């Protein structure tokens, strides 16, 4: 059946800020869907609150709204745009839940809008774990014994009945949110409280454990006629008990027989039908008993997902695109397979390679957080490795993690790192084999399927072969077929990496680039989606005149995420517009940049110097763009230049001037810029000497760190000692510690600019809402600045341009500056596109990435006409909001500091600061309490300032409470304020009050290690119970402005396209 003609305009719901469990894979799906629907001639209205996405680029949809994903805002958009339908299956759990809410509140009915892909019944059937069980019963599928629990009392009974361990799985949450494994009644009771709290419907499925079973996932598609296909089968390396998002997974499945697999496939089909999924993609998770083969269903999601993005990249089958086309009425057989261009889409991809996904974690960012994996997802990103064998793909995936050149460096085995699932388990298993452990002993500790362990052991055994013999061309080839990096081969054969590489090139042991073609070679295909393998003979790529490679940003991690994918994807388009062919290189399956139709050539490869340079040789590219993918490409740039490749734009010298702190400071002094006083210490004594000179507080950081790792504000001598004690392993003579004067209370700004040979365009000055000392990625921001005086802002711009000129930037430059008492200090320069670029672009409408491309290609002033771009020209205010993953790390503190911790951002646009703040905060999941008690615990210097806020709150009808000092201060100022004990003053204390639900907002400012530790429980209680907790006075002020705005209940929505016209 062809397209449904009555549908002319659709609304697509995005997934909001990046959070653990819901990341940029939904940008990939949404973008793909928008492109497909636009091509069909539909009008596409897109709403997402996340400005870092590619889908919110005005070119992707007819109308793009960056607004909170909440009913009132969506209603307003619907009222304005009048779409015939909403597609809720592309924006993850957020979009499904939002669609349900729109339905329940009657918005869809009121405007006569239909839901495409999944209707409320389907969403409920899949998400309500009890309804889902009924469906499983109907089709005869099995599942672990379980009870749906709605109250604590009922829960305790159920626990005793089922026995321990127990699995808690809340309804309607994402990434296993609020769930977990309870091994004892005690653990169970505390987890139950939390789980009930996390479920929007206060329902938790309490289930008997199937820990240790083999876990599988099927990615399926169905059209309105009932045609049903499996796109991909995924098998987990980690058995049940580790969330699939945190598991190492491989595709296609390897250890099920055809009979077992077909039975699973049949069951998947029946479930999809019974759930009533009309069209689109879905995934179903199964567990299989390792001995008896018994099979149970874990869950199903009636939408595209993280795993469907992975499946799309693993197979070449664009699930989201097809889902969108099915939603508007097409049938699978009517849609052509993009890759073969001759066959239809109603088939099942055949793979002649193996794909391995490995998640990337961020435990080190959350001091105190225990590195343990469970049914609640904790990873922040993932990589995918493609190889002809599991071993080759595993090694490539490990190298893609960008942790170590050797993939598996020598480490010291810790038994508990093997027996308890954790982020380092694979590395400890590998090392254990090196140390002579047996497969049986590891299998016993991990319950991992022996087949996988044998494969890993095979790699280690081959290390032995390499060590024992002198390196021949044949051995070298065998090592490469197993995915060994040159660096690992070099260490094992006692050679240098360069020697290995030279021998490899001499002996012509070179990678071959093979196509991902969806059909294992059965049909010809011209889609340029490649992976490297040493299992085939190299094939030549045709040479092209203007061909450039753009290096992507690798796995998402805190500090480097989707924002850089935005830059890369826009960069690809920018170069293409200028007539260039672009090779995209990246290892992250969640991204738009690794969609096979983004660039002219896609190389799905690790971003290491070795893999990148082999691609550049094979693809005959000599120019590389390293400015768009964040720090990853910057790090490989020196190696590439050494091999004779050319960087587009800024050269190595420029990069070095910006990155090398010593050289950077020297230039700043030369330009008469103020910089914080600083020094470098190799040990504590050195540090004490420096502090004597510059005075406390100071900010300490070891050199060679990323994203503010180990960076801390140190307030006094005692803390300095403690800092050196805690970080001694990161500080040494050749790795000194940088100590800067800490500009307490300074206003921080981010500047993004592009410089061409004779021009500069400043994209904007983003004023941080939190003071300097909170990492630029963690502070909220506003454009245009609200507190900065115009002259100072102008001065910031001038200084930025001077710096760009002085270090010879061609292309992007990002700067952070701090302003204290009208003095401007230069903090840091990044010679590349930055995290803030997409926000600035969407706030100001200046196409910074296109300008960057023009700069790199040498376009002059006349051509670029930089005077066209004035970042203050748009009316209104834009606020950047931030989201944090503290909920997932129950032992971690939520206080903000110079080390970045946020996973994602949102954007709010408004006619004034208040409206923008309100939207930005709503979008970053802040809840505004309508009434209730506000609890304060303030450090001395904030008290006076916060008094105003307290007064306003009282006036608005809130009551006050505080710890002793703060309470007395308020009382002296004539405010009524209840007084609560601090934790060390005995019970009941303030945390008891918070935990028992008596408080609806907390304002808690502290500094100094000691007080921070003392107030930890306050912040933790807030995180656990989703109570807004403000830890910075500036943030509190901003919150109040937003809170007032919410009471006005007035807001407008505008599309980016409409803004462009203003």
């Amino acid at each position, binding site marked *: 059946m062809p397209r449904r003609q009555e549908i002319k305009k659709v609304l697509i719901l995005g997934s909001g800020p990046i959070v653990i469990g819901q990341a940029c894979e939904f940008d990939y799906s949404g973008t793909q869907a928008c492109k497909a629907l636009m091509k069909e001639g539909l009008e596409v209205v897109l709403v997402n609150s996340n400005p870092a996405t590619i889908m919110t680029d005005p070119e992707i949809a007819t109308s793009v709204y960056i607004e909170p994903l909440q009913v009132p805002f969506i209603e307003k958009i619907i009222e304005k745009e009048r779409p015939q339908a909403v597609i809720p299956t592309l924006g993850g759990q957020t979009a499904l839940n939002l669609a349900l809410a729109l339905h329940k509140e009657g918005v869809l009915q009121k405007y006569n809008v239909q839901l495409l892909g999944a209707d409320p019944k389907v969403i409920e059937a899949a998400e309500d774990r009890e309804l889902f069980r009924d469906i499983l019963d109907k089709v005869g599928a099995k599942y672990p014994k379980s009870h749906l629990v709605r109250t604590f009392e009922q829960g305790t009974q159920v626990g005793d009945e089922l026995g321990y361990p127990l699995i808690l799985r809340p309804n309607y949450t994402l990434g296993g949110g609020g769930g977990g494994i309870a091994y004892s009644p005690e653990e169970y009771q505390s987890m139950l409280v939390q789980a009930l709290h996390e479920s929007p419907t206060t329902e938790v499925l309490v289930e008997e454990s199937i820990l240790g079973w083999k876990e599988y996932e099927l990615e399926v598609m169905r059209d309105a006629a009932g*045609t049903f296909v499996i796109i991909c089968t995924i098998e987990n390396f980690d058995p049940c008990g580790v969330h699939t998002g945190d598991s190492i997974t491989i595709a296609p499945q*390897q250890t099920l027989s*055809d009979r077992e697999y077909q039975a699973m496939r049949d069951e998947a089909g029946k479930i999809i039908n019974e759930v009533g999924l009309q069209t689109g993609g879905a995934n179903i998770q199964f567990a299989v008993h390792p001995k008896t083969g018994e099979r149970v269903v874990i869950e199903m999601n009636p939408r595209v997902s993280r795993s469907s993005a992975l499946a799309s990249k693993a197979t070449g089958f664009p699930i989201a695109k097809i889902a969108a086309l099915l939603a508007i009425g097409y049938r*699978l057989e009517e849609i052509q397979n993009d890759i073969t261009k001759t066959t239809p889409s109603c088939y099942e991809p*055949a793979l002649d390679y193996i794909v391995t996904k490995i998640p990337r974690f961020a435990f080190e960012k959350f001091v105190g957080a225990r590195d343990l994996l469970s049914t609640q997802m904790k990873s922040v990103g993932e990589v995918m490795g493609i190889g002809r064998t599991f071993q080759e793909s595993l090694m490539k995936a490990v190298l893609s993690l960008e942790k170590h050149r050797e993939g598996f460096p020598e480490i010291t085995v810790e038994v508990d790192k093997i027996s308890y699932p954790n982020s380092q388990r694979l590395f400890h298993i590998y090392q254990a084999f090196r140390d002579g452990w047996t497969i049986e002993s590891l299998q016993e500790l991990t319950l991992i399927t022996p087949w996988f362990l044998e494969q890993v052991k095979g790699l280690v055994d081959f290390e032995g072969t390499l060590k024992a013999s002198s390196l021949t061309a044949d051995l070298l080839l065998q090592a490469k077929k197993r995915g060994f990096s040159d660096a690992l081969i070099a260490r094992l054969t006692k050679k240098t990496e360069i020697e290995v590489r030279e021998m490899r090139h001499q002996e012509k042991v070179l990678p071959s680039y093979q196509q991902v073609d969806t059909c294992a070679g059965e049909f010809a295909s011209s889609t340029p989606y490649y992976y490297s393998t040493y299992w085939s*003979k190299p094939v030549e790529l045709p040479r092209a005149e203007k061909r450039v490679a753009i290096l992507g940003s690798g796995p998402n991690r805190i500090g480097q995420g989707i924002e850089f994918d935005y830059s890369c994807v826009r960069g690809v388009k920018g170069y293409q517009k200028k007539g260039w062919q672009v090779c995209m290189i990246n290892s992250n399956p969640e991204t738009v940049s690794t969609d096979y139709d983004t660039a002219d050539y896609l190389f799905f490869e690790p971003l290491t110097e070795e893999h990148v340079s082999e691609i550049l040789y094979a693809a005959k590219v000599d120019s590389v763009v390293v400015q768009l993918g964040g720090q990853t490409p910057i790090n490989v740039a020196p190696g590439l230049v050494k091999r004779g490749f050319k960087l587009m734009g800024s050269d190595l010298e420029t990069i070095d001037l910006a990155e090398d702190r010593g050289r950077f400071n020297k230039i700043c002094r030369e330009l008469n810029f103020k910089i914080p006083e600083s020094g470098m210490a190799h040990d504590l004594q050195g540090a004490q000497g420096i502090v004597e000179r510059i005075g406390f507080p100071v900010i300490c950081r070891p050199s060679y760190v990323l994203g503010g790792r180990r960076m801390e504000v140190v307030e006094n001598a005692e803390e300095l000692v403690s800092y050196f004690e805690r970080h001694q392993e990161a500080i040494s003579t050749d790795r000194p510690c940088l100590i800067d004067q800490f500009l307490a209370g300074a206003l921080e700004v981010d500047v993004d600019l592009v410089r061409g040979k004779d021009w500069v365009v400043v994209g904007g000055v983003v004023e941080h809402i939190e003071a300097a000392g909170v990492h630029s990625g963690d502070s909220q921001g506003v454009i245009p600045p609200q507190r900065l005086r115009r002259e100072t802002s102008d001065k910031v711009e001038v200084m930025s341009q001077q710096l760009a000129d002085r270090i010879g930037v061609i292309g992007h430059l990002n700067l952070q500056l701090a302003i204290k008492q009208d003095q401007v200090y230069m903090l840091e320069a990044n010679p590349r596109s930055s995290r803030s670029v997409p926000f600035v672009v969407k706030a100001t409408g200046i196409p910074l990435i296109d300008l960057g491309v023009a700069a790199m290609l040498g376009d002059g002033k006349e051509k670029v006409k930089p005077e066209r771009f004035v970042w203050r020209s748009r009316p209104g205010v834009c606020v950047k909001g931030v989201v944090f993953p503290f909920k997932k790390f129950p032992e971690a503190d939520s206080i903000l500091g110079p080390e970045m911790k946020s996973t994602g951002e949102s954007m709010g646009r408004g006619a004034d600061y208040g409206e923008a703040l309100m939207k930005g905060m709503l979008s970053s999941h802040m809840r505004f309490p309508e009434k209730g008690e506000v609890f304060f615990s303030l450090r001395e210097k904030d008290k006076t300032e916060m008094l105003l806020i307290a007064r306003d709150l009282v006036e608005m009808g809130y009551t006050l409470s505080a710890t002793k000092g703060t309470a007395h201060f308020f009382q002296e100022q004539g405010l009524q304020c209840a007084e609560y004990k601090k934790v060390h003053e005995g019970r009941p204390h303030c945390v008891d009050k918070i935990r028992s639900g008596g408080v609806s907002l907390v304002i808690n400012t502290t500094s100094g290690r000691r007080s921070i530790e003392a107030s930890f429980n306050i912040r933790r209680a807030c995180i656990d119970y989703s109570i807004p907790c403000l830890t910075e006075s500036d943030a509190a002020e901003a919150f109040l402005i937003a809170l007032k705005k919410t009471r006005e209940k007035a807001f407008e929505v505008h599309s980016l396209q409409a803004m462009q016209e203003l």
Partner: protein
Amino acid sequence: MKQGFCVLETGEIYRGQWHGGEPRAGEVVFNTSHSGYEEIATDPSYYTQIVVMTAPMMGNYGVDRDVWESNKLWIQGFVCVQMQSSNRDQAWLERLREFKIPILSDLDTRSLVLRLRQGGTPWGALVHANSEAEAIDLAMPLIAKEKSKDKDWVFAASSKEFQSRRGEKPAGPRIALLDFGCKENIIRELLPMASEIGVFPSRTTFEKIKEWNPDRVMLSNGPGDPADVQVAVETVRQMIGWKPMMGICMGHQILGLALGAKTYKLKFGHRGSNHPIKDDLLNRIYVTSQNHGYAVDSATLPSYVRVSHVNLNDQTVSGVFSKEKRCMGIQYHPESHPGPHDAHDLFRYFVEQL
């Protein structure tokens, strides 16, 4: 480990590792199924064929005598990227060795498959040798000898004597099954719906079958070129319109020939578990298991027969149907094994509706 080679009659040569078995020759074909190696190897339709698996890693889940599609392994060789061979489990390797099937791994199967796709499926041999030259010397005579074998492969694969199998449904029909190299699963599918199945050798005459007086006739799958099959076409022609009749794979092609249509060789055949079919009888589109190198030419079908099933990848004939003559032919494998069960309902259609 010994070096092994896959030598094609056209001269191309592919190097890999030899895992045992004896050197043999056959038609070199590729299969894109991810799993089901044991079902494939025991399927008589693979008689005289060297099977190249496009999925790289084979033997991972061991073996299981219960999934056999006949009582032996029929393939002439097994080729893949990597063979499971650990202390814990190398059962698949051993099973192939037990039947002296040559096994080649560590081979660039992708290049070989692209060659087969582009140039068609030639004859070839798997041999072990110290050099390419030696490999060619060993392979060519093997190929020549294998090619001179009697062409009626169906006869070679078929049972030689009549056999009766008791069905599970006493009220069900008696089904005559003309065995062209029948996969056990066709019988497994029919038994629950039939009272008795009579399995007849491929060269059985119409009279013999008539004597047995079946209610329905099933023509099984089988190896080779339908044009080389003796006797069966004539037998089937006489049965057209006599009793409801269904042919599967080779059975479908023989039915086609009996109906007066022509068959032709596909460039590289269809072998895998992922082929989409449009089925007008059940009115569905689904994914099927396939294994055939020949197809029926739709232009040569008589007017009372319609093309009821189409392979959506290349629009070739995947099934024919005649209401008038109560017969149907299905080019793929509704009995699956390996592959999806989506077309399974065709058996019910045959038994209850045709």
